Structure formats: C-alpha cells, structure tokens
C-alpha cells in the first residue's frame, strides 16, 4: 500500500474515533434543533420577539433528514466523481506510457 493511502486510512480512523468518543463517555440528549442558543437569548432578553420565521419548515423529522441526506450525498457525489475520473485518467496515462516504453526496451 502506498504511504499516502496509509496516512489517509489512519486519518479516517481518527475522525471516526472523534465522532464515537462522545457517545461512549458523555450522556447527552444530542438534540438536533437550535434551541439552546435561542433559550439563552430568551434568558437574557425575555422581551425579545422573534420577528421573522423560516419561509418553509420541513413537515417532519423524516423529511428533514431526507433533505440533509440529499445535501450530503449531492456533495459526496460531486467530490467522488471528480476524484474518480482523475484517478482513471492518471491510470490510463501511466498504462499508455508503459506501453510505449516497452517495445523500445525489447528491441
């Protein structure tokens, strides 16, 4: 395995550990809304009136997670397509230069 690939795998394991460690050691609610900041604001300024509301709110948690997944997978798709196609091009180029080099060495 190439050194770079090895480093990437180690880094990826570190990311997974960073995400998992909180679950193992900390018991939290892991809530998904933005209540805390809003709550703190209400504590500091009880008279503050929220004067604007989101144009459209996902009708349920399921729809919200669907949209988040769409967002993530769209991005992943773009990244992987570009890296994958570059990888293929590089391999093709290497194979071509090898082919061209070989007959010369035979003679």
């Amino acid at each position: 395995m190439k050194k770079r690939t090895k480093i990437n795998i180690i880094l990826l394991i570190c990311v997974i550990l960073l995400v998992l460690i909180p679950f193992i050691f900390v018991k939290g609610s892991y809530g998904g809304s933005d209540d805390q900041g809003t709550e703190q604001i209400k504590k500091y300024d009880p008279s503050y009136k929220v004067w604007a509301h989101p144009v459209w709110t996902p009708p349920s948690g399921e729809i919200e997670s669907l949209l988040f997944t769409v967002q993530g997978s769209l991005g992943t798709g773009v990244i992987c397509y570009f890296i994958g196609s570059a990888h293929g091009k590089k391999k093709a180029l290497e194979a071509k230069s090898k082919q061209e080099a070989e007959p010369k060495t035979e003679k």
Partner: protein
Amino acid sequence: MELVKKYRKFLMFLAIGFAYALAYPTTAHAMHIMEGMLPPKWCIFWFAVATPFFIYGLYRMYKIVNSGVPNAKVMLALCGAFVFVLSSLKLPSVTGSCSHPTGVGLGTVMFGPGVMAVLGVIVLLFQALLLAHGGLTTLGANEFSMTIVGPIVGFAVWKLCRALKVNRSVSLFLCAMFADWSTYVTTAFQLAIVFPDPNGGVGAALIKFLGIYAVTQIPLAIAEGLLTVIVYNLVISNDLWKESALQ
C-alpha cells in the same frame, strides 16, 4: 514505569475533562443563528458588512474561472461540494450535543479566502430555505461568521504555517481547524453584542455563548481538519490540482 508515569498525567487530564463535561451537561445545539433571532438593525448591519466581501468573492471567482489554470472550474465545484457535505454532517460532541463543521478550509487553501464568500452563501441559502436551519434575515450574520471570518482566519493560519516551514498537511489541518472554530467564536460574539447579560454585560454573555458554541465545536473542528487533509491528499495524488497553482 516511565511510560506509565507519562500516560498517567495524560489520563488524569482526560478524566478531569470528562468529569467536567459530565457535571455540566449543557444541551447546546451549536449552529448558525436562527431566523429572526437578530433585531432588524443588526440584520441590516451584517448584510452591509458581508456585501463587499461577497462582491470581491464574485470578482475572484470570475478571475479564477477565466484564468486558464487546468481544472480550476472542477476544483471550484469540488470545494463547494465539500462545504455542502460537511455542513450536512451533524456530529455529536463532548458537550453532549450536536453541531456541524463548515468545510471552508479546503477552498481557502486552494483559492484564497475570497471565493468562499460565494460558495458558502449557496450552502447557507440551501439550509435556510429547505431545512429551516439558519435564516434569511440572519443570512448576513451567518455569512460573516462562516464564509468571511472563518476563511480569513484559516488563510492567515495557512500562510503563517507555510512561512514557518510547517509540513503541508499539518498546515492544512490547522487552517481548516481554525477556520471552523473561529466561525463559531464569531457567532458567540455576534449574539453576545446583541444580547448582553443583564448583570454581567457583554463579557458574561460572551462566556456563556462561547460555552454553547465554541466548546462544542472543538472536537468537530479537529475532525474537520483531518477530513480536509484526506480530501486534499486525494486531490493532489490524482493530479487533479498542482500545489503551485494560484499561489
């Protein structure tokens, strides 16, 4: 024995850290400022501050697209996509709550901080319109923290590290980490100025908001730094991008 002694200190430190986190289980949801949570005059103020950066970003983008550098457009798309992915990942943190990374470090290193102001807005709009996350009225403030302060801080860290001849991957890691973290520090500032503590003033409010936003973000910023290095390594090793381009 020496080794055990060495690690004992480290373990003690860890234990204290976790004990602290357990004793103060704040359920923070460290994210962008929600719709309507800033008074109108502050919304206008942040829009006014963010607009010049956005226009500069458009100008930079125009130049990059027309620069003739191979793969420039592809890389712009890739950097935008990276922001898309990372801001959709709500990750758990040691404070027992969730937050998401920003992903602006990658584009900052490749194209400089200006471009992120444009790419970031696309993501912020997507989340404000479709996910009720962030908001249109607070778009200026969120734009300022995530796509202006974050990339500028990250870029400064990157340049400083490179000047000090720090290893490229480490510089990139630090750049992405500080870009992410400074975003949430800025958010805390933005809220503390508008909503000071009735007794302690802006300072006390700042500490409280930093507790909500910045502490949660620490492990996520580290994770973001590592992910950025992985993607950058893949880009470079597949000849998609030359390190010397546009630098």
